[in-house]
Each structure stands twice: as C-alpha cells, then as structure tokens.
C-alpha cells in the first residue's frame, strides 16, 4: 500500500515543479475571485444571507395584469424570498434604487394591462444600478419570467375567448387564473438559487468548481505522460501491481481536485467573504463533486491518444460544464438548460451547498450527495476500466 503513496507523492512533486497546476488550481481562481470581488464589491460585502429588496411602482393601478404582478411579488415576500416596497411613482422608485434603499425596482407603465390585452408589446421596466449586475440580472429574469407567463396566459385566454365568447379583459383574467400558481412558483424557483446561497458564496463555489475541472484530470494525464516517457513500463516491471498504479493516479486526481477547491474556498472566505457552513458536510460534498468531475473528465479524456489531446479534452469539458453547471450565472426554472444543467456535478454541488446553507446537516444534502457519489462511481468505474488498456509499454 505504501507504494501507492510514494507514486502520489512523486506525482505531486512533479506537478508542483511543473507549476501549471498552480495556475489553474490557484492563480486563475484567485484572479477571478479578485475580479468578482471588484465587480460585485458593494453587493458582496453583505454578511447576512441576501434577501433582495425590490421596489415596485405600478402606474397601471387597477389593471388586471399589473395587479397580478404585484400579487406575485407580494407572495414572494410572504415566502421570505424577497423584500418588497411599493413606490408612488417612477421618480421615487428611481431615487430608492439610487440611494440603495432597494436593490432593484420594477416599474409598470400606465396602460400596461390594456396594451397586453390589445396584443401590443408591453414590458415591465427593470430599474437597476449598473454597479450591481447580479441583482439586475435577477430582476430581469423575474420580469421576463412574468412576461412569459402573461404571454402563455393570453394564449390560453385567447382560446377560452374563442370558445366562450369572453371579453378580452375577461380572457386575460381567465388565463391568469388558469395558471395562477405558476408565476410565483416559477419566479421562486429561479430566485431560490440566489436566495439560498448568498452572492459571494455562490460565485466562489462556482469558481472553485469551474477551475477544479481544469486540474482534476491530472491522474489520467500523468498516466498518459508516464506512458509516453516510458516510466510507466518501468513501473510495470517493478513489483507494484497495475491496480496500484491506477489507484495512485485516482488518488492523485482527487487530492489535487480537493486541494484546489479547498484552497480556493479558504481564499474566497477572506477575499470575498464567502461563507462556508457545516465544514465536514461541505467537505463531503467537495469530495463527491471532485470524484464526479474526475470521473467525467477521465471518461472524456480517456478517448485521447496523447497527453496533449487529453489536456484539450479536459479544457473543453471544464468550460462546457462550467457554463452549463451555472457557475457563472444561475440557471433556474424548468427550462431545457436547467434540466441539462443537472448533468453536471457543478449544479448538484451548488444545490447541495444551498440546501446546507439553511441548516439541517446531512439530511438536507442527502440527494445532491447521493447524485454526486453516483456520478463519481459510475464514471470512474468506466474510466478505470478504460485506463487499463493504457497500462502497457
């Protein structure tokens, strides 16, 4: 067993001397962390879990659709997802945003409901500071989500109108009623992503996962490298069994992956004010996510014939999963993208951290943990079986 340890140590020593691992494992994530902290500086300084404060100003008072929007927002507030204040007019809303009283505002223009009923384009205006792109993004998503609901509601209403001879107003009303539970629920599911992990923690976790994937293939890569340099044949001629060589490469990947995430979490704690709770369980999530990422990378890069090729495959996987996994922006709702996102360890890792942030320990992260562990076991098993064919001179 000790020989496995010596192989891992030897590989780590080589990696450390190579230095590229530092770039992906530490320097790049830190640079991103610094950039994030500059970009979202003010926003990220909050220490409590973020509850977005939204202002709503309705110049279309009494309109059925604008009222529905207000109701939906109010519902979000009672669920504790956001804070809502209502403002007399656009000017007071703008001021509130400017003064930072609210994070962003929604302005519903006069005649909004009628315009929709008449089939014209009408928009909920999002008022946000350019210095807070994250919150602006969230607000925009809410507004778009609402617009989507209205559109589908009008379609439903139009059908009803044709069938039942409703007035246009009645039909929109009917349509909205038909899908009543939906708008708040969907907005909530989108919002929940951000609510549950505060900004700095969300983006730090995302960056940590994103960069981890760039280094987690190190086990497979070093195996290919050893084959190219003939040292693999030399190892095979020694009393160390092939299984142990693979075990060492697997441990190397996990060690480097966990090390990269761990270091980044540590730095982000101080640089960005990320909050990591329940460390033992967070650690479990990290190990499971790293295992899953290592498995996926090894599976894909296992098709490569050379170390260089494998390196490229690894980068492609890292970028694709990083974007898909929502490490840069939350992917919510039940869109196709959101479903696809669940194929990445990133999404499950973030979800696990989110679940954990509300307290509750192991029980609340059981699902993400099991999914991650499952991903890891399946992909690693397949890739280890595949790697066996690389174990020749």
């Amino acid at each position, binding site marked *: 067993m*000790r*020989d496995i340890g*010596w*192989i891992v140590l*030897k590989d780590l*020593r*080589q990696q450390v*001397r*190579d230095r590229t691992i530092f770039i992906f494992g530490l320097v790049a994530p830190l640079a991103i962390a610094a950039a994030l902290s500059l970009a979202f500086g003010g926003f990220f300084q909050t220490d409590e879990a973020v509850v977005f404060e939204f202002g709503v100003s309705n110049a279309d008072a009494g309109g059925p659709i604008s009222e529905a929007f207000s109701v939906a927002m109010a519902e979000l507030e009672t669920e504790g997802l956001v804070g809502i204040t209502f403002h007399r007019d656009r000017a007071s809303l703008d001021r509130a945003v400017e003064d930072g009283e609210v994070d962003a505002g929604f302005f519903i223009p006069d005649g909004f409901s009628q315009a929709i009923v008449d089939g014209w384009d009408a928009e909920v205006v999002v008022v946000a500071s350019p210095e807070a792109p994250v919150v602006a993004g969230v607000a925009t998503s809410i507004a778009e989500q609402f617009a989507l609901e209205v559109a589908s509601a009008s379609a439903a209403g139009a059908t009803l109108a044709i069938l039942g001879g409703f007035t246009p107003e009645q039909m929109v009303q009917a349509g909205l009623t038909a899908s009543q539970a939906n708008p708040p629920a969907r907005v909530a599911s989108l919002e929940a992503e951000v609510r549950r992990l505060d900004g700095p923690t969300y983006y730090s976790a995302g960056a940590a996962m994103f960069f981890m994937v760039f280094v987690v293939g190190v086990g497979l890569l070093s195996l290919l490298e050893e084959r190219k*340099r*003939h*040292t693999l*044949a*030399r*190892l*095979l*001629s*020694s*009393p*160390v*069994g*092939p299984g142990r060589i693979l075990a060492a490469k697997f441990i190397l990947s996990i060690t480097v992956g966990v090390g990269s995430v761990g270091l980044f979490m540590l730095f982000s704690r101080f640089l960005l004010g990320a909050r990591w709770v329940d460390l033992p369980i967070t650690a479990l999530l990290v190990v499971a996510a790293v295992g899953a990422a290592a498995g996926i990378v090894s599976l894909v890069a296992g098709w490569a014939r050379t170390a260089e090729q494998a390196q490229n495959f690894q980068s492609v996987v890292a970028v694709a999963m990083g974007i898909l996994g929502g490490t840069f922006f939350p992917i919510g709702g039940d869109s196709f993208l959101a479903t696809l996102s669940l194929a990445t360890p990133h999404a499950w890792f973030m979800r696990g951290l989110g679940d954990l942030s509300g307290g509750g320990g192991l029980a609340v992260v059981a699902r993400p943990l099991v999914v991650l562990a499952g991903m890891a076991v399946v992909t690693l098993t397949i890739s280890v079986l595949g790697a066996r064919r690389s174990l*020749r*001179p």
Partner: protein
Amino acid sequence: MNTPVTAPAPDPSPLVLQVEDLHKSYGEIHAVKGVSFQIAPGENYGLLGPNGAGKTTTIQMIAGVLAADGGRVTVCGKELTTSTTSVKSHIGWVPQEVALYDRLSARENLAFFGRMQGLSGKTLAKRVDEVLGLTALADRAGDKTVKFSGGMRRRLNIGIGLLHQPDLLILDEPTVGVDVQSRASILDQVAEMTSRGMAVLYTTHYIEEVERLCHRVGIIDHGTMIAEGTRAELVRMVGERDRVLITADGNLSEGADRLSELDGVHQAGITAEGMELLVDDAAPLLPRVFETLTRSGVAASGVRVEEPDLEAVFLHLTGRALRD
C-alpha cells in the same frame, strides 16, 4: 546386502531464467514466434539480432511488462507474468528508451524506483549512493535529469535497473545513441556486473558488444531464434574456422607436418611469410602450436588470428548482413 539408498539429487542451481516458446503478435505482425532459451546464474547471455527482429518484444514479455500471447517465462524457478508482482523483483529491467522523470533529480529518480522495488530506509539510502557512484553521477545527484547529457541519462537509466540488486539484469540496447566515452563506461559497467556474478540478458545489434561481454549468444531474426551457443560453438556450427597466420623462418615443412597432426588443426600450409593454419578455436590452441613449432626447428616471429565473427555467422544463416 545393503541396497544403496540414493538420496534425491540436490536441485542443481536453478536457472535464473527459462523462456519457453514465447509468442507475441501486434495485430497482423507476428513479432515473436516461439522463442526459447535459458540463462544460468552468473551467465551473461546476449540476444543478438537486427532491428525489428523481436528483441524488445521478447524482453518486455520476460520483464512482465507486456503480456505474452503464448509461452512461459520462469524466473528463479517461479513463473512470471504481467500480474505476478512479487516475482518481478528478481529482475532489473533497463528499457531501450531512457525512462526517467525529467523534473526529478537523479537521486529522486533512484529513490523513487528503489521504493517501487520495495527498498526503504537505510538500505535504500545506501543503494542509491552506491548506484550514484557506480554510474559516476554522484556529483550531479541533485540535478534534475532534464539537464543531463544523453550519456548521463543512459547511465542513470541502467543504474535504476541495478538498485535492488536483481538476480537477472536485462539490458535492451543500452548503448544505442550514446557517445563513445559513455558507451565504453556502460560496457565496463556491464562487465563489472557480470564479474560480480550477476546474470545478464543483453540485447544488441552490435556484434562487438556481444563478443566482448557475453558468455552465450542467441541470434534472433524475424521473431525466431535461429542459432544459439557460445561464440565458438556458433562459429563452428556454420563450419567457419579461425585462420592463424604465422610469420616464421626455418624448417617450415617439418613444422607444417607436425602441426597438421595436432587436435583441432584442420589444415597447415606454407605461405610466403611463414605458415597458415585453419583451426577450430585458435586461442586455446596457440601455446601448443608454438611448442610444436619450436620443436620442429621453426622460429616464429609473429602471429595473427583471423576469427570468423558472428557477423559471418549471421550472414551464413540468413544470407543477409546483420547491419544494413
């Protein structure tokens, strides 16, 4: 009457290596077609053959690095396959290509591979130092091997195979692409190992190396062992004999007559400079030749032996030159 009780004969010192009917194909290429040979303890065995003959493939199967398609390798009495890990420590395999970690120093490379061979603690430290001395790399021990010259890398490559003092050292073309000086020092190193009693399997396509180092030689071509034996046996096998050219004066015809009666002398003739003999093996015969000449009243002033070499043997067996 007592029936003599015969004790079971003590196991004769077991063979270090026994190779039986090894086969290996790479797809369509049948690279090794039933190679068999044996190596006794302390023996230096040369595997001689042109490029592509199947030497490396054979050796990789012996070292347990490459799985054989058929046949059997027994090392120190135990069967060796790619998965019989414990048997592998009997062997020190030096691959044809230099196999080192560039970013580790010479000492770190040695220590790592020593550990892989199960060495540790003081034994490991001692062996690493010894090998550094043996390979004349002690003063560069701390340098990363990426900075080493080709010859230094080759020497370290061999040194790693010696770390655990194996029963059988296997060297695969250790002098290919090496400068003259390093080559000489590598050959010295191998000769030294042999003289210390380590069995050696040495592959090469250089005849001089085999003639200088090896007790016995197997000639391999197209994946088949085409001849095997000591140098003299091989030469005799193909009917080639040593020519002994003697510069001499005196009663030459008397000398020639007497010499032709000697065992091992096939022909003795008179030439312009003296005489010419055709013999089986010149070296052991020469003292008696001179004794006979003196008694016949011939004064010999010089002698030159022309041995048919393994090149000639290969040419005879295959109709091709060993090196193209």
